[in-house]
C-alpha cells in the first residue's frame, strides 16, 4: 500500500515540497530502494542480471539520485496519490542501474527497461565484514554505559538524534558529539587492527605555473 493511502494532507504537503512530508515519504521507502541499489536485480523474462553498487559511496549516491529525481517539483505534481509509489521509485532505481551497465559498455535491450524485476538475494557476509564486526562488538563492549546505550538507540534501533536525545535526557548537540566520538574511536580501533583500508594513490600533483 502506498504511503499516501488515506493521507490526503500528506499528499498535499508532499506536492508543496514540505520538507517534513518529503522526509516521511523518504523514510517509508528508503530501505526498499537501498536493497535494489545494493543487491541489483534480475529480469526473469530475459534472464538479464544487473548488479548493484559495489561500494558504499556509490550506493549512497544512487539512493540520493532516485529520491532527488522522484522529488522534483514536476514529478511531485505529476503524481496522483493513487498509483503505487514504491513501484515508481523502484523503476527509477532500476533504470539508474541499467544506465550504469550501459555506460560500462554492456548492452541491455530497450524492452528490458519496462520488464518486471526480481531482487537479487543478499550475498553471504564477506570475511572482512565478519572480522570488522568482531572488532566493533569488542569496541562497543568497552564503551561507557551511556555510549553503549547511544549505539543501541542511534545505530541499532535507528532513532533520530532528537529521539535519542530525549531517551538519554541530553541535548541533540550532545548526541551529535558523542556519536561522532564513537565513530572516530571505532575507526581508530579498526585502523589499529589493520581493518581500515587506505585509498589508492592519487595522481601527480603539479605546482601551477611550473609546467
Amino acid at each position, binding site marked *: 500500500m502506498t504511503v499516501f493511502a488515506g493521507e490526503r494532507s500528506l499528499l498535499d504537503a508532499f506536492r508543496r515540497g514540505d520538507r517534513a512530508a518529503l522526509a516521511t515519504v523518504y523514510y517509508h521507502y528508503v530501505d526498499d530502494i537501498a536493497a535494489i541499489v545494493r543487491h541489483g536485480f534480475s529480469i526473469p523474462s530475459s534472464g538479464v542480471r544487473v548488479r548493484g553498487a559495489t561500494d*558504499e559511496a556509490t550506493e549512497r549516491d544512487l539512493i540520493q539520485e532516485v529520491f532527488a529525481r522522484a522529488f522534483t517539483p514536476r514529478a511531485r505534481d505529476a503524481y496522483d496519490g493513487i498509483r503505487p509509489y514504491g513501484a515508481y521509485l523502484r523503476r527509477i532505481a532500476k533504470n539508474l542501474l541499467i544506465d550504469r551497465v550501459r555506460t560500462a559498455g554492456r548492452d541491455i535491450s530497450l524492452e528490458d527497461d519496462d520488464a518486471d524485476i526480481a531482487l537479487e538475494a543478499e550475498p553471504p557476509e564477506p570475511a572482512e565484514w565478519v572480522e570488522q564486526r568482531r572488532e566493533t562488538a569488542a569496541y562497543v563492549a568497552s564503551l561507557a554505559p551511556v555510549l553503549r546505550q547511544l549505539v543501541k538507540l542511534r545505530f541499532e534501533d535507528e532513532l*533520530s538524534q532528537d529521539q535519542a536525545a530525549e531517551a538519554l535526557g541530553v541535548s541533540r548537540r550532545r548526541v551529535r558529539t558523542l556519536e561522532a566520538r564513537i565513530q572516530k574511536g571505532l575507526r581508530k580501533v579498526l585502523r589499529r587492527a589493520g581493518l581500515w583500508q587506505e585509498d589508492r594513490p592519487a595522481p601527480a600533483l603539479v605546482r601551477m605555473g611550473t609546467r
Partner: protein
Amino acid sequence: MTEPSRLLAGRRGPSRVEKEAILDGVLARVAPRPRWGRRLAIGALAAAGAAIAMIVLQPSAPRDELTARGGALPDGFEVSCVPAPCSAGSKLVFDLAPTGDAAYFAAYARRDDALIWYFPSTAKGESRPVPRGGGVLDTGIVLGPEHAPGAYVIEGVFSSEPLDRAAIRTARAHGRTVVTRQVVVQ
C-alpha cells in the same frame, strides 16, 4: 571500506546516519530552505552585532565576521583542463569561489566505483587552503594513466578547518554539502 555506522548498526545496508545524510542531500536539491529566511537571519545578526559594537565601542570587530559567516550563497568551484580538451597529460585547474567562511578545499574524482583523490593528495594529508578571496588553486592535477578515458564526477568539499580523508568521508556521510562538476577525459 565499511562505513563505521554500518558496523555499529550490525547491518550491511545504509545506517540511520547515512540515510539522514542522503535525505539532506535530496532536500538540498529539491526543497532548499528559502534564502530570504537565511538572509533575514543574517541581517538580524549583523544588526545585533553592529548594535553591540556601538555600545561597547569596538567598531572594527563584528560586522565583517558576521557577514562572512552568513554564507548566503553556496561555495563553488570550476574545473578546467589545460590544454583542453581533457586528455592524458592535461592539467586539471581548480578555480575556487568560496562565499562563506570556507578556508580549505578537498576534491576527488569518482567514476563508477573508483575514487581518485586529488586533495588531500596523500592518505595522511589534509585539504588545501583556499586562496584568499578565492581564485585558482596553486596546485593542479596532471591527468595520468589513472584517468582512463571517460566521464568523471569531481566532488569538492569546502570546510573551515583542514580535513583528512577520513574526516571528509565522515563529513560527507553526515550531509556536508558537496559541490560536483563533471569532466570528460578523452
